[in-house]
Structure formats: C-alpha cells, structure tokens
C-alpha cells in the first residue's frame, strides 16, 4: 500500500464525481457515497500506518559515529510531461509524516461526514455539500502525498477552491459570500509567495520540483544562502496566508460563516494546517535560510509568537462561540509555526496532530450546541446548557481542558514539547511568549465554557441533547483528545516522534530533547493559575462590572480589540480604498490652503493689471480679431461636425479608405 498511496486521493476524487452526478437520485442524497469513500480511505490509511511501523529501518542517516538507521521513504513517480529539456515527474512520496497526516485527515474527514448527515439534513444543497467535502479531502490527500512542489501546489489550490465553496455554502446571504471572497482573496495573496518560492527553488535546486532533492540541495549548501532567504520568505508568505498567521489571519474568523462541520474540518483540523505542513515538508529551506539552529531570534518564530498572543487576546472579546474557537485556532497555529521556527520540528507536527483532534471536537461540540439553540451567540442565547445537554457538555469540557493543556490530556504533551524545544534551543523569549499564550488559552476557554454551559439559560425555546450521528463523532474525538498525547510521552518512548522523523529531519540534525519535569510543572502551574483566575473572574463574577464604562483606558482597549486591531479597516479602508481617500483629502487640503492662497494673491495683482488692460487693449484692438477668428472657427467646426456622425461604420470606412490612400501614396513614391 505504501507504493500505491495515489489510490487514496483517487478514491475521494471518484467519489466527488459520483456524488455530483448521481447523488441527488440516491435515498441519502449522496452522503452514503462520501462516507463510504472517506471510510475506505480511513481504513487504507490505517493500513499504511501499520505498514510503515512494520517497515525495516534500512536508511542510514547521520554523520561519522552517530549513524542511525531509519525507515526510508517510499517513492513512486511517473513521468508527467516533457517539454524540451524539462522532464516533470509526478507521484507520491510516503514517509512517517505523510502517513500520520493521511490518518489525521481521513479520521477527521470521516467523522465530519458522519456528523454532517444529521447536521445538514434538509439543506437545499445537501448533495453539493458532500461533493465539495469529497473534493476538499482529495486536495488535502494530494498535498500530503505529493512528491513534488508542483503536485503540492495543485492540492493546495484545490483546497483553496473548496474552502471558498464551502464557506459560501449559504451564499444567498451577503455576509457569507463576502466571507468566502475574503478568505479566497486573502489566502491568494499569500499564494503569490508560494508560486514565487516554488519557481525560485526549481531553478536553485537545478531544475527539479522534487521536494526531497530541494531539501537535500538546501541542506548541503548547494544553494546560495541569499537565494534560500528569498525563497523561504516567499514560502513563508504562503504559510501566513493559508495558516492564518498574523497579519493575514483576518479571513479565518469570517470563514466561520460556513457550516460548522466545515469549520471543524477545513478551518481547524486540515486546510489551515496545510501551511504548517508545507513548512515542515520543505524544512531544509527554512532551516538554512533563517538560521534556525543558531537560536536567539528568527522570522518564522516571530510570526508564530505574534500570532499566538494577538489571536488569544481577541478570543476574550468574542460573543460568538465559533469566533472564540476561530481565534483559538489561529493562536494554536501560531504555536505550530513558532515550534518550527525554534527548531522543535517533531513538537510542531505532534501539536498539529493533537490540535486536530481536540479542536475538531470543540467545533463539532459547538455545532451540537448551536444545532440545539439555533444560534452561535454565547451571551444572548446560551448559558446553563450543561443540564439539557450533558453529553455535549462532557465532551466539550474534555476538549477545552485538552486545549488548555491540562495534564494528562493531549494538549499538555504537545504544548509542553514546543515550550521545551524553544527553551532548549536557545529561544527563551519565545518560550515565555508560549507560556503567556498558554495562560491566555486556559483563561478564554474558561470564559467560553462558563458562558455556554453554566449560569442561567438566556435563550429561547427548549434545548435538547443531539442525536447519535452528532454525538458519535464527539465520543471518538474525546477518546483521541485524551489519549493522543500519550503517543509521544516519555513512557511510550516518544513513539510518535520516532514514527514521523524523516530524512530531512536527520539530515538537518534537528535537536531532540527529553521530557523535563520542571518545565512540565511550570506550564501546569500556569494553566491551573489561568483556570483559577478565570474561575474567579467569570464564575464568581469577580470581574469588575462595567469596567469599560468607568475606566477610559479599559474602554479604549476594549474598542481596539472589538475592532480586531482595526486590521480589517486597514485592509479595506487603507489598502483597498485608502489609495484614493487620503490622497484625495490631502490634495483637497493642499488645494484649499496652499493653492488658493497663491491663486488669490495672483488674482489681486492680475485684476489690477486686467482693469487697465481691459480698457485700452481688449476693447479696442483684440476684440475685433477675436470675433473674426471666432466666426471663422465656428464655420469650420460646423463643417467638420458633419463627419462626426457617431456611427462606427462610417468611421471604419474613413479609416480603411485613409489607410488605402496612404498605401497608395507609399506604393507610388517607393
């Protein structure tokens, strides 16, 4: 199966067409085809994981004494096309990272399919919804199995398209179609970087799109450092767009306009981590380009760290439960990018894996809640839901604690590993930022849980527990949210890390660190403190009421946050409209104050002169001449006016006739 990884995207791609053509005629509207297809890919990906684990360790990596044997990647490529000297190959490249990603995507996609059968029931575009889901899953499979940057680009764009279609699923409402457009354009802005980066690396690595060769060329010093920096910056732009990093993160909260299962699949677990995956895949370029092993400071880590804090702060002021989760996703993606920036490669992928589990759980949980109260507004329509929806409450609670990073749930292990890596690799500042982020994460999740499940019910109608198709996926994800972290714990001998660490990882010589109890204690204390303070603030109502009304500073801060740092204003008002606005205002001011003054002054002088001139020169000498020429011009104009009939064919006749005459003149003279 490892050689035939192409079967997996092929299955979902076939399913896309089948649903599109025959979905409407089937009793379940095509959802059965989608579930069958994704279910079979889930089985196949489990088979692949098993085969990978059983694969012999034959590939020798390392230098000198420290030679280690790892499982070699499985390549299977065919020639795609030849054009002159270019021979472009396409195919699959399967290693530990690939099989883990395949499993993650297949699992989440399968659960989302099951969840959607109930959640989307009766939707008018039910069939198209499932077709888009299949196509999206295909795109993600293509990306993670791609052996070349070109194939990766293909999957990348396919996902972008499906994301656009699914965000705008209910496009009849203007905000939804606007959100879809915004997501598409914002990610496209970053994708320009991807194209540039792929092109640069193609030439720099000696005319190849092969990712393994590019990594090798980058790490062996075959590509000059300047070129690598430019390529890495370009690729980072793509990562910033797709993985919603600061400053292009603004599309992700708006993308919540799509159906909730879509948010769980695309905007939490899979598509948004495509950027992180790309970073991890062509890690050699970033490793050398940004001097990641040197420690101290680098651009990738800075982008990630900024995103962690900025998004976490915004999560505090949201009323919409999905927006809280959206900002939380941005913040967690920041962790992954920061982890890659500080050289904690394994930790980043591990966090990607655990985050996919508990964030999908949280999103599906919020879907279950909104399915019951028909709203996403925590402040006005929720509260006290733990009683009518005990099962949703329990699973949501586990997800929240896993996200907060409480021992021994999944988030604890992966977040701790990132912080450890940052600390050990000489990125102390980023470790502290990570701790601050962890503190805020635990606190805003406390607020979110309080507003949703505790206190008095503030909505209308009678909330009820969701049916099994909705609860089933929640249970499965709960199991993973609890257990996934143990896969890479000290007492399982970092099984997960051993599984995914690939050729590039060893070739670069990425450092690995053993679990450290003091570090884990610090982060646990931080998380517990945050939950405690959050408990006091939100549950006990110790939050000073009306602080924004009394304290001007607090009010300014709140307004600043409520407007999302005014980034959207800057983008729409500043970048899009601003080129005309301020310039026009500046020009107006210049007009009013500078030019007018000059003009007025000149005018006064000129008037004096004109008075004199009028009397003697104008009335006498010039008028006669002017009147004469005026009459002349009018007559001439009247004559020429007759040619201007406004009929395009007469103009055409004149054009062709004149051209022919000119040609005649040319023939006669030459």
């Amino acid at each position, binding site marked *: 199966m490892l050689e035939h990884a192409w079967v997996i995207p092929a299955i979902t791609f076939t399913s896309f067409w089948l649903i599109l053509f025959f979905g409407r005629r089937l009793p379940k509207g095509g959802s059965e085809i989608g579930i069958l297809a994704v279910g079979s890919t889930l089985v196949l990906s489990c088979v692949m994981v098993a085969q990978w684990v059983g694969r012999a360790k034959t590939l020798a990596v390392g230098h000198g004494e420290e030679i280690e044997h790892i499982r070699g990647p499985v390549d299977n490529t065919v020639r795609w096309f030849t054009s*002159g000297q270019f021979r472009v190959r396409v195919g699959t490249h399967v290693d530990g990272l690939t099989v883990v990603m395949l499993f993650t995507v297949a699992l989440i996609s399968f659960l989302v399919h099951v969840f959607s059968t109930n959640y989307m029931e009766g939707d008018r575009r039910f069939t198209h919804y499932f077709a888009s889901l299949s196509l999206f899953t295909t795109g993600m499979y293509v990306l993670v199995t791609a052996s070349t940057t070109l194939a990766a680009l293909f999957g990348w764009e396919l996902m972008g398209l499906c994301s656009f279609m699914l965000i705008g699923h209910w496009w009849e409402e203007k905000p939804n179609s606007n959100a879809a457009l915004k997501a598409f354009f914002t990610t496209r802005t970053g994708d320009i970087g991807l194209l540039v980066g792929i092109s640069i690396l193609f030439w720099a690595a000696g005319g190849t799109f092969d990712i393994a060769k590019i990594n090798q060329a980058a790490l062996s010093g075959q590509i000059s450092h300047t070129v690598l920096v430019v390529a890495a910056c370009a690729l980072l732009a793509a990562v910033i767009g797709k993985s919603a990093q600061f400053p292009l993160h603004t599309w992700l909260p708006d993308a919540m306009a799509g159906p909730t299962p879509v948010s769980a699949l695309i905007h939490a677990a899979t598509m948004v981590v495509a950027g992180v995956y790309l970073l991890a895949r062509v890690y050699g370029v970033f490793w050398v380009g940004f001097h990641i092993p040197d420690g101290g400071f680098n651009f990738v880590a800075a982008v990630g760290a900024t995103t962690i804090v900025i998004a976490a702060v915004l999560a505090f002021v949201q009323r919409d439960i999905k927006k809280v989760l959206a900002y939380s996703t941005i913040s967690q993606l920041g962790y992954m990018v920061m982890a890659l920036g500080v050289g904690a490669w394994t930790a980043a992928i591990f966090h990607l894996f655990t985050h996919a589990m508990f964030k999908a759980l949280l999103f599906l949980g919020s879907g279950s809640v909104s399915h019951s109260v028909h709203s996403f507004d925590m402040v006005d329509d929720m509260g006290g839901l733990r009683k009518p929806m005990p099962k949703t409450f329990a699973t949501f609670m586990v997800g929240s604690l896993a996200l907060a990073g409480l021992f021994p749930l999944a988030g604890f292990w992966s977040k701790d590993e990132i912080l450890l890596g940052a600390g050990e690799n000489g990125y102390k500042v980023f470790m502290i930022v990570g701790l601050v982020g962890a503190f805020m994460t635990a606190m805003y999740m406390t607020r979110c849980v309080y507003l949703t499940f505790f206190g008095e019910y503030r909505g209308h109608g009678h909330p009820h527990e969701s049916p099994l198709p909705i609860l089933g996926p929640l249970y499965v994800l709960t199991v993973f949210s609890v257990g996934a972290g143990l896969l890479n714990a000290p007492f399982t001998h970092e099984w997960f890390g051993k599984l995914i660490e690939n050729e590039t990882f060893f070739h670069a010589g990425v450092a690995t660190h053993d679990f450290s109890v003091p570090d884990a204690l610090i982060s646990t204390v931080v998380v517990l403190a945050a939950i405690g303070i959050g408990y006091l603030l939100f549950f006990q109502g110790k939050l000073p009421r009306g602080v924004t009304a009394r304290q001007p500073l607090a009010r300014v801060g709140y307004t600043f946050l409520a407007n999302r740092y005014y980034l959207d204003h800057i983008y729409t008002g500043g970048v899009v409209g601003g080129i005309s606005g301020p310039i026009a205002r500046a020009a107006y001011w210049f007009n009013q104050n500078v030019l007018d003054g000059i003009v007025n002054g000149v005018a006064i002088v000129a008037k004096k002169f004109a008075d004199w001139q009028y009397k003697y020169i104008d009335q006498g000498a010039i008028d006669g001449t002017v009147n004469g020429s005026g009459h002349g011009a009018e007559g001439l104009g009247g004559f020429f006016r007759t040619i201007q009939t406004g009929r395009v064919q007469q103009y055409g006749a004149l054009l062709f*006739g004149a051209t*022919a005459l000119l*040609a005649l003149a040319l*023939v006669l003279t030459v």
Partner: protein
Amino acid sequence: MIAENIAFGVLAASAVLAALRLVTTKNVVHAALYLVVVLASVGANYILLAAEFVAVVQLLVYVGAIVVIFLFGVMLTRAQIGHESELDNDQRGIALVTALFLLGILSYVLIDFFQDDKLPELTGVSKATLQATRGTGAVGDAIFSTYLVPFEVVSVLLLAALVGAIVLARRD
C-alpha cells in the same frame, strides 16, 4: 504538384464564394453557415501549407466553438430566422469602393513584390526532418519554450475576456 494546385483552386474558390455570400446574404443563419464553409476551406488551405496542427485547431476552435457562439448570438438577439430585407445599411456604395480600392492596391503590391516566387518544395524532404522543423511537436516545443511568455499573456487575455464577457452580459 498539379493535385495540390487543383486542391488549392477548389478550396480558394469555395472560400471566396462563400465569403461573398456571407457578406451579401439576406439571412443571418445562412451567413453563419457560409462562415463555416469559409473557415473550413481556409483550414484545408493550412494543410496545403504543411501546418496540420493549426488546421485542426482552426476546425476545433472556429467551426466547433466560435460558430456555435455566433448562432447563440443570433438566437439571443432574436434575429429573424429566414429572409430579412434590411441587413445592409446605407453605405454599401462607399464600402464597395473602399474594399475594391484596398483589393487593387494589395494585389498590385503583392504581384509586384513576390512575382513568381515559389514555396519551397517539401516532397523531397524526409518525414523526420519535416516533423522536427514544422510538425506538431515542433509547434508545441516553440510555444512552451521560445514563446512561453506570449502564451501566458494570451491565457491571461482569455481569462480577462471571459470575465469581461460575463460582466457585460449578465443582468443585474
């Protein structure tokens, strides 16, 4: 040699005659059908010039696609299907004079300059050489190497035309 000339004669005659009918017919749908004849004859002429790929593209794009678009245009503008008296405007005379004048000058220049120049003989050339110098493969190589940038520009132009046509024609 003679066969080629006969073929050219037949094709040229049908192209010119159909073109003349195209600009004089009183029936819009007939005009579209005459256009098919012109385009097909011209496409066959391309084969005489050893440009088989362009000939096939001519058939696919023009006869297959553009004529269909024209028929759509005829249909959507609700032209009378059948005889219609008022298809010409009042400047037929001017148009005729201009066209004949152009034709005279063009013919004079062409005959004066090229005299009896012949196209190079391709009968003696080996098949492999022909393929390498003017075959379909050579066209593909040229498009994706020498003319890569114009090719991309043309593709962007098509995209712009697509968007432009939609924006122009949609109702809102």
